[in-house]
């Protein structure tokens, strides 16, 4: 007896150990992944020592400054099948070396020592720089030698000046010239629209438009000249420096955006430099085909897209779930719908992308731009409008009759079916009337063939993702609705509440935390998705943000950047993949952080709701 229970316990123990092991392995894998990304992602910004290398290359020796990024991780086998480890060396100066990384067999490194006085500079073009500064040539005044105590301060001042100038140029070229361009386009559109409408005073209009464009072109030229002047100003101050092999080079000081002396930094200095690098990464725009600079537009795009997605998916999902759970008669039809919804969650995301492209972008977007592609002939359309109103009236009257009016017996099943059918017919007719309207020429017809909404954009991308994550919200909402105890529903009804009042005042608040959970899951899934975005509006480099200070502030039709796509683009589409690797890790870390932060805030909201409606059953 005792031995048998003992045996049983031992048997059970094994299973506990097994399941414990499974959990531990799972945790370990997730933990290791996160640790790797955290380490590699943050390491990017840590100022690293610069060494002076002497490398044998054939008969010659090459001397370079470089940072070791990877030692012994890779290697090659020589003729004797012996393993020769390689180091990956970051040298910067793409303008000199062509690439910023080189891979060197370790035995060929003849000498490496800490290079005194080397400056590491973050530069606008040519990638990072690593050099020994020799002297500055300011726009006016005498040159300053690098060993002059005033050198660093002067350089810092000039760099700051350059940054300011570049911001001003950007302001002029992007915003002010952009505004002038918009107005020129508007004038041209005006002329095209007038021509299309067959205006009688076309000549007058043309003359006026030409006049306006003339003056706008003058504005344009003036602004362009301003920008050109500033650009020239950028080139004035020069910095001269030597590379590892002692060769002399020089370029404009303004090419440098930030600099530090990594080999002379204290821990505090390193931390400060780390913070500056991280901040630049978070707040700046990418430069130099995304290899340099920051990822701010991608962060912003991801954020806006995820918020839009949540805003769109929540009402649809919740309404659908309320109908399915609370109103629909539970039967084979509803069960089928439920199964379909659940299966939707398993459809590959690219399929949603293709659907989004076909339906939202080309279909709805094309309609908004230019109206119906194949409109119905006017008589048919008018007939449809009349038909729609007739059916609508019939359906409403039917509905009034169907609701058990005082003193009348409730309607039969057949009548109910006819009433439902009328509503469906009315909806179909309405759809036809809107989509096949021959009198609607689109809101952006004058721009055609350049599409406005008829091309990928953040609105369509979010809608596509909303569609993709709809099942998550529906399932979560249905479950949390079902979890609201029967007792409180009955209590509400017994107090004289109608069904809708019960749902609205008792059931929904009780289910809110569960609904939030669904939305959180949907956001988490949507934020990390890349494939459907690639065909519905994500681009490698978006000229402007989806929300900015330009009227109407929210530009739902604009293309946008996304961290997930950025990772793909940097890591796998970039010509200098090795150089992009650190950025890939940093961006991955950022994407994960963004998703975690958004989820955390949603969880906080949920917990707040939970406390507020502390129902016993959740």
């Amino acid at each position, binding site marked *: 007896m005792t031995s048998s229970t003992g045996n049983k316990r031992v048997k059970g123990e094994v299973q506990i150990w097994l399941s414990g092991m499974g959990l531990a392995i799972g945790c370990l894998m997730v933990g290791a992944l996160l640790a790797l990304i955290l380490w590699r992602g943050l390491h990017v910004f840590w100022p690293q020592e610069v060494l002076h290398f002497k490398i044998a290359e054939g008969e010659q020796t090459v001397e370079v400054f470089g940072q070791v990024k990877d030692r012994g991780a890779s290697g090659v086998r020589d003729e004797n099948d012996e393993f020769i480890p390689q180091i990956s060396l970051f040298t910067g100066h793409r303008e000199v070396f062509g690439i910023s990384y080189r891979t060197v067999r370790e035995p060929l490194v003849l000498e490496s020592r800490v290079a005194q006085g080397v400056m590491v500079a973050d530069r606008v073009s040519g990638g990072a720089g690593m050099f020994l500064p020799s002297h500055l040539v300011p726009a006016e005044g005498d040159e300053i030698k690098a060993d002059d105590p005033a050198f660093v301060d002067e350089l810092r001042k000039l760099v700051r000046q350059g940054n300011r100038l570049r911001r001003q140029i950007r302001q002029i070229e992007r915003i002010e010239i952009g505004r002038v361009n918009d107005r020129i386009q508007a004038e041209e559109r005006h002329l095209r629209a007038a021509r299309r409408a067959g205006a009688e005073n076309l000549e007058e209009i043309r003359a006026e438009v030409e006049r306006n464009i003339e003056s706008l072109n003058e504005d344009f030229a003036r602004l362009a000249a301003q920008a050109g002047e500033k650009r020239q100003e950028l080139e004035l101050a020069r910095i001269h420096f030597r590379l590892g092999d002692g060769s002399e080079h020089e370029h404009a000081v303004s090419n440098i955006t930030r600099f530090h002396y990594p080999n002379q930094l204290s821990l505090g200095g390193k931390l400060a430099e780390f913070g500056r690098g991280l901040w630049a990464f978070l707040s700046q725009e990418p430069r130099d085909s995304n290899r340099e600079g920051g990822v701010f537009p991608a962060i912003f795009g991801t954020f806006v897209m995820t918020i839009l997605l949540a805003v769109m998916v929540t009402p649809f999902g919740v309404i659908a779930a309320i109908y399915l759970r609370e109103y629909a008669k*539970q039967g084979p039809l509803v069960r089928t719908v439920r199964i379909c919804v659940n299966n939707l969650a398993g459809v590959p995301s690219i399929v949603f992308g293709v659907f989004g492209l076909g339906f939202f972008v080309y279909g709805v977007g094309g309609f908004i731009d230019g109206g119906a592609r194949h409109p119905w002939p006017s008589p048919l359309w008018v007939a449809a409008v009349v038909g729609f109103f007739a059916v609508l009236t019939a359906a409403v009257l039917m509905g009034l009759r169907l609701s*058990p009016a*005082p*003193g*009348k*017996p*409730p309607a039969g099943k057949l009548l109910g079916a006819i009433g439902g059918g009328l509503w469906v017919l009315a909806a179909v007719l309405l759809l036809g009337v809107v989509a096949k309207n021959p009198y609607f020429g689109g809101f952006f017809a004058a721009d055609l063939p350049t599409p406005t909404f008829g091309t990928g954009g953040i609105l369509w991308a979010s809608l596509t993702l909303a569609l993709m994550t709809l099942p998550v919200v529906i399932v979560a909402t249905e479950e949390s609705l079902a979890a609201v*105890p029967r*007792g*409180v529903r*009955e*209590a*509400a*009804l*017994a*107090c*004289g*509440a*109608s069904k809708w*009042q019960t749902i609205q*005042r*008792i059931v929904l*608040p*009780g289910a809110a935390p569960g609904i939030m959970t669904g939305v959180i899951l949907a956001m988490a899934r949507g934020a990390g998705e890349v494939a459907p975005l690639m065909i519905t509006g994500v681009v490698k480099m978006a000229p402007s943000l989806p929300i900015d200070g330009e009227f109407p502030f929210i530009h739902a039709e604009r293309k946008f950047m996304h961290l997930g796509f950025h990772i793909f683009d940097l890591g796998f589409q970039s010509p200098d993949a090795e150089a992009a690797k650190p950025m890939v890790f940093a961006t991955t870390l950022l994407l994960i952080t963004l998703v975690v932060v958004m989820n955390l805030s949603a969880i906080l909201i949920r917990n707040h709701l939970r406390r507020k*409606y*502390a*129902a*016993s059953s959740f």
Partner: protein
Amino acid sequence: MTTSQPEATPTPNSAVGHDPAFIEVERFSFWYGAAQALFDISLEFPERRITAFIGPSGCGKSTLLRNLNRMNDLIDGVRHEGDIRLDGTSLYDPAVEVISLRKRVGMVFQKYNPFPKSIYENIVFPLRVAGRGSRSELDETVERSLRGAALWDEVKDKLHESAYSLSGGQQQRLCIARAIANRPQILLMDEPCAALDPVATLKIEELMMELRKEYTIVIVTHNMQQAGRCSDHTAFFYLGRLIEYAPTLQLFESPAKEQTEAYISGRFS
């Protein structure tokens, strides 16, 4: 009201307010799916009286009670025969709106079920869904109902805290307060004192005696003393059938049926 009353009761009938409410159950049978829960029940409830339902567990007391405000409509696959009339109108008359019926017939459930809201919001809920309530009316209702349910002194300082912060017995009294907030004509109480201590039970009984002046009360109880103490009429059910229905004193002192006697004297098999 043309129907004759079953008996002449001594009336402390200075009560004011409502029209007289009067419930008649006529040959009423009820099915949950295929299972019949009530068999051919006929009885009448006089107005402004307390009627008690007694009987062993599962005999259909709650089922009949829940039919009086059509709460059982919500369950799938139920069916009934016979009729229940309130004040002369059938509950099942298509002209009767369930919502306004439920406003006239308040209910306290067997399992206390406050809303996940504050104490205050729990009590004003019936007024809110009726679209009524100036601030002062709501405040006045809360105090009156809570005093009525003998809960005011315990919660008057934390009206805006969650109802779930109350003890079980307090939650039950909160449900009673909620049921009387909108002044229904009829109050259905399904074992209202099951979760209460003797003191609170006594308070509820006092409350019922008080409410009796204005309301018609139907109460389900497993407590014979309670039925004896505070009801005017008692109905004894057994296996879905009404065995005996008589003035309480009569039913307890000289039951007509053997089963009744066995049940009330605790000799029930």
